[in-house]
């Protein structure tokens, strides 16, 4: 089964600074990759997804992520962080196996934005 590692439990950046959240996955075939954001007490909002094609994907709120097969990574980036970006970010990997669309989440990275 697939698995996801988010090495950074907590990251603090200053408002206006750039951001990169790391995600590494383990899966034998080409995975489907996702980034979700969760504000406290809220549900999961999809930021972006990768299924195939261009390895640099654009998402909502100015986020992007790059799929690097050689590194088994799907890092999330944003050039200039806003205070409203403070939240928990989850990377997830999915795979379409017979009769089952299997998704696993990473442990999450909590983002704090300093003024």
């Amino acid at each position: 089964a697939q698995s996801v590692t988010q090495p950074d439990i907590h990251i603090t950046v200053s408002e206006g600074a750039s951001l990169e959240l790391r995600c590494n996955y383990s899966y034998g075939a080409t995975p489907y990759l996702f980034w979700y954001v969760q504000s406290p007490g809220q549900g999961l909002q999809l930021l972006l997804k990768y299924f195939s094609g261009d390895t640099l994907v654009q998402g909502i709120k100015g986020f992007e992520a790059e799929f690097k097969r050689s590194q088994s990574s799907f890092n999330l980036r944003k050039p200039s962080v806003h205070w409203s970006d403070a939240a928990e970010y989850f990377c997830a990997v999915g795979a379409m196996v017979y009769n089952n669309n299997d998704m696993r989440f990473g442990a999450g990275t909590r983002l704090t934005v300093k003024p």
Partner: protein
Amino acid sequence: EPEVTQTPSHQVTQMGQEVILRCVPISNHLYFYWYRQILGQKVEFLVSFYNNEISEKSEIFDDQFSVERPDGSNFTLKIRSTKLEDSAMYFCASSLQSEQFFGPGTRLTVL
């Protein structure tokens, strides 16, 4: 835009009681899922459901859990005898193919 809905938004129950969490998936979706998120922890897969049967379940999904699609629209998660450690946010999701769409969650509090 179609969305997954869940009711109730918050359920409080006594330990040992049965609870049923309800979900209405997106109408043309074929795959249905339940996930759990204990406060401050990651989202954990519980079970997937396709063609009126369980496709896969995690080790968390033991005999106290069951799922059902009683009619053409609802998808339910039943916890037979709740324990304190069942307190969590429960998310339902549905998909047509690879992308899962999540509901807003039901917060279950077991006292």
